[in-house]
C-alpha cells in the first residue's frame, strides 16, 4: 500500500521516458546551409575542391553537433558514422562517373564507321585515317579461343568438385588452389605463356595468338570454376534423387537434370569471365607482339587486340606532329572496348535474371 502511494507520488516527478528527437528535415536543412557555405567559399575564390571539402565538413560537423545537442552523444556518434559511410559511397562513385564521362566525351566523336573498318596498314601510321578493325578482330579471336579452352575445363572441374568429389581431400585441395589461382597477376599469366612457347617452339621470341589465348584462359579458369560450382551447389538434391530413383544413371542425371537447372547461372558466370579477360592487356603484351593488320592465324605471327592497341598507341601520343591523331585513336578504342565489356556484363545480368530457376515451390 505504502509503496503504491510512493510510486504514485514519484511518477509526477519523473522525467518522461522520451528524449528529444531531431526534426525529420534536419539533414536536408544542414545540407542546404552547407551547400550555401560552399558556394560562398567558391565566390570568395577558394578552388572547387576546397569548396566541396568545406561544404562536406560543414555538413558532417553541423549534423553531428546538432544531434549531440538534441539527442545525446550516442545518437550523435551514430549519425556521424552514417554520414561517413554514405560519404565513402559517394567518394567511390565520383571516379566511376568521371571515368565513363571522360571516355564517352572524348571517344564518341572518334567512333565513325571508317574508324571501325580501317586497320593501321599503309599510310595510317604517318597521318590521318587508320582504325581499329584489326584490333577488334584480334580481340574477338583471342578471347574466343580462350573461352573454348577454359569453359569445358572449367565446367568439368566444377562438376567434379560438386558431383563426384564432394568433400573429399582432392576436391578440397583443388578448391583451395582455384581460390589461390584467382590471385595470379595477369602479367604472370603472360610470362607463363611466353615461357611455355619458348620451350615448346624453340623460338627465342615467340609471337602467336594462341599463346595469348592460353594466358587468358588461365585467368578465366578460376572465375568459371567458382561461378559454375556455386550454381551447381544451388541445384536441390531432391532433383538428383528423383532422377536416380527413376533409374537414370549418374552422368545422364548431370547432363539432363543438373546442368539444365543451373544453365542460367552458368551462362552468367561464363559471360562475366569472358568480359573480364576481353579487357586484359598485360598478359597479351609479350606474346602477341604488334600487328598493324588483322591476322586470322592464331598459330603464327603477331596479333593486335584492343587493349594492347590502346597501350601501344599511348606511346605515340607525344609525337610532335601526329600526337593528337594518336590521342583520338586511343580514346576511340577505349570507348569501343568499354562498350564491348559493358554489353557483355549487361547480357550476363539479363540472362541471369531472365532465366533464373524459380526458387520456392
Amino acid at each position, binding site marked *: 500500500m505504502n509503496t503504491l502511494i510512493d510510486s504514485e507520488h514519484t511518477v509526477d516527478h519523473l522525467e518522461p521516458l522520451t528524449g528529444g528527437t531531431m526534426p525529420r528535415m534536419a539533414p536536408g536543412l544542414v545540407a542546404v546551409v552547407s551547400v550555401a557555405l560552399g558556394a560562398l567559399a567558391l565566390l570568395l575564390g577558394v578552388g572547387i575542391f576546397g569548396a566541396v571539402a568545406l561544404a562536406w565538413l560543414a555538413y558532417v560537423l553541423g549534423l553531428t553537433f546538432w544531434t549531440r545537442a538534441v539527442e545525446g552523444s550516442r545518437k550523435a556518434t551514430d549519425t556521424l558514422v552514417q554520414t561517413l559511410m554514405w560519404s565513402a*559511397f559517394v567518394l567511390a562513385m565520383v571516379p566511376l562517373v568521371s571515368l565513363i564521362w571522360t*571516355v564517352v566525351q572524348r571517344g564518341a566523336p572518334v567512333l565513325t564507321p571508317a574508324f571501325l573498318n580501317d586497320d593501321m596498314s599503309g599510310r595510317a601510321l604517318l597521318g590521318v585515317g587508320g582504325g581499329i578493325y584489326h584490333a577488334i578482330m584480334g580481340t574477338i579471336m583471342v578471347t574466343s579461343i580462350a573461352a573454348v579452352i577454359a569453359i569445358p575445363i572449367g565446367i568439368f572441374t566444377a562438376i567434379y568438385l560438386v558431383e563426384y568429389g564432394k568433400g573429399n581431400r582432392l576436391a578440397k585441395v583443388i578448391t583451395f588452389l582455384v581460390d589461390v589461382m584467382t590471385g595470379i597477376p595477369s602479367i604472370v599469366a603472360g610470362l607463363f605463356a611466353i615461357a611455355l612457347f619458348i620451350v615448346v617452339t624453340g623460338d627465342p621470341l615467340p609471337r602467336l595468338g594462341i599463346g595469348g589465348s592460353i594466358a587468358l584462359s588461365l585467368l578465366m579458369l578460376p572465375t568459371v570454376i567458382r561461378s559454375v560450382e556455386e550454381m551447381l551447389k544451388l541445384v536441390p538434391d531432391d532433383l538428383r534423387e528423383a532422377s536416380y530413383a527413376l533409374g537414370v544413371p549418374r552422368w545422364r542425371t548431370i547432363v539432363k537434370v543438373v546442368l539444365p537447372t543451373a544453365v542460367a547461372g552458368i551462362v552468367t558466370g561464363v559471360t562475366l569471365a569472358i568480359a573480364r579477360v576481353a579487357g586484359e592487356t598485360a598478359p597479351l603484351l609479350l606474346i602477341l607482339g604488334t600487328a598493324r593488320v588483322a591476322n586470322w592465324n592464331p598459330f603464327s605471327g603477331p596479333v593486335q587486340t584492343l587493349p594492347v592497341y590502346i597501350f601501344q598507341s599511348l606511346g605515340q601520343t607525344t609525337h610532335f606532329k601526329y600526337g593528337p591523331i594518336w590521342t583520338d585513336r586511343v580514346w576511340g578504342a577505349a570507348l569501343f572496348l568499354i562498350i564491348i565489356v559493358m554489353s557483355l556484363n549487361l547480357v550476363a545480368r539479363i540472362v541471369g535474371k531472365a532465366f533464373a530457376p524459380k526458387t520456392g515451390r
Partner: protein
Amino acid sequence: MTTAIQEPAPQLEERARTTRVGDAVFSRTALGAALLVVALLAGVAIFLFIQGLPALDAHGEQAYGKSSVWTLVGPLLFGTVLSALLAMIIVTPLAIGLALVISHYAPRRLAKPVGYLVDLLAAVPSVVFGLWGIAVLAPRLTPFYEWLNSWFGWIPLFDGPVSGSGRTLLTASVVLALMALPIVTAILREIFAQTPTMHQEAALALGATRWEMIRLAVLPYARSGIVAALLLGLGRALGETMAVAMVLSATGAIISFDVISSANSNTIAASIANNYANAAGLKINVLIFAGLALFVLTFAVNFLGRWVATRGQVKA
C-alpha cells in the same frame, strides 16, 4: 515362364553396361579436368622457373644496368609493396564503408543498384583506368600534392619536390585502390550480410543505435573475413600491371620513399610491361625472373588470405 522372364535380360545387361561405361567416361573426364587445373598451376611455376633461372647470370646491360638480377628485382619489390600498401590504406575505410552501406545502411530497394554500380567499377578494363589516371586524375591531384608537401613535407613520403605531371607513385596507388575496391567490397558485403540476424536484433533490442549494433555484432563476427578480404585485395593490387605502367612515370629500379615527386620507385609488373618491347635474349629471362618473384609474393599473400578466410569459416 522362365524364358519370358529371361527374355529382357540381355537388354538390361546392355543398358547396365552403357550406364557403367557412360558413368566411367564422364567421371574420368571430370576428374581429368580437375587434375588439369592443378597441373596448369604447377606448370605456371615450373615454366617460370625454367625460363627465369638463366637470369641469375645476367649483369650489366642484360640486367638493365644493374650488377645482378637481385639488385634489379629488390628495388622493384620495394616499389610493388609500397604502392600496394598505400592502395590498401586508401581502400580499407572506403570498402568497409561501402560494404556497410550495401548490407546495412541502404534501404533494401537501393542496396541492389548500389551493389551493381560497384560491380560496374570492376568491369572497367585496367587499360582504361590507366588512361583516365593520366588524363583526368593526375592533373587534378597535383594541387593536392602541393598542399600535402607544404603541410606534411616533414614526413618522408611527402618530401617533394612535387612532380609537375602528377604521374607519381601515389597517383598510381589511388588508381590501384579504385581497382581493388570492388573486389574487397564484394567479399566484405557478403560477410557482413552473413552476420546472424539474432545477434543484430538482440543488440537493437537492448537499445543499441545502428552503429553500436554494427560495432558489437557485425564487426566482431566479420573480423577474420575483413582480414581475408583485405589480403585478397592486397594480392590484386600487388599484381596489377597496366594502371601502374601507364600512370607512373618511373625513374627505374630505385628505392624512394617519396611518393609525390618525379623520382619514383617502379613496380615489378609495370617495369615488365614497360620493358618488354626492347627485350630479347637474356633480357626476356630477366623479365620472367622478375615475374617469378611477383608470382611468389602474390601467391604467398593470397595463400595467407584464403587460409585466414577458411579458418574463420570453421570458427564461425
